[in-house]
């Protein structure tokens, strides 16, 4: 999430700016926590399929690590492209 999405706050009194910033912070915290939960859910679902033991075996653990790593890189790349589109940067095909 990008604070610039709030547009022009200059006209607001100091108190309202603080309140707006606090709101953005709260939404970012909520979003980070949800993203954490959805990342866990996805990597668990994709990597863990046997329930003969109650601990992750080596293969499952490394699958989860790669999955999470990959998702984070994916998410970062999507974020860059998304920001470009939001700013109206045009690129050839």
């Amino acid at each position, binding site marked *: 999430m990008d604070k610039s999405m709030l547009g022009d706050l200059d006209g607001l009194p100091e108190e309202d700016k603080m309140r707006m910033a606090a709101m953005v912070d709260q939404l970012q915290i909520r979003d980070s926590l949800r993203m954490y939960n959805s990342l866990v859910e996805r990597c668990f679902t994709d*990597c863990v399929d046997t329930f003969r033991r109650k601990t992750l075996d080596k293969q499952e653990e490394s*699958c989860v690590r790669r999955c999470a790593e990959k998702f984070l890189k994916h998410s970062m790349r999507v974020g860059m492209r998304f920001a470009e589109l939001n700013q109206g940067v045009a690129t050839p095909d």
Partner: protein
Amino acid sequence: MAAKGGPSNFEKEQMFGMAEKEMEYRVDLFNRLTHACFNKCIEKRYKEAELNMGENSCIDRCVSKYWQVTNLVGQMLGNRPQM
């Protein structure tokens, strides 16, 4: 409280509420786009932790196409007063 000519407390609440909904919308859009493109582009066996070249270019095109779908549907909804 609102002795000066500024907005009333009620109007301020409305304004903050709208800004909040707008941000929630953008976060929601970003998250759905991220998951949709992960599903379309990423190989689910997770053999490597790195994105390969094919995945990278798929992601770029996927984000671009998702964005176009957003605009296309937005135009369609814009023509409908009931939305």
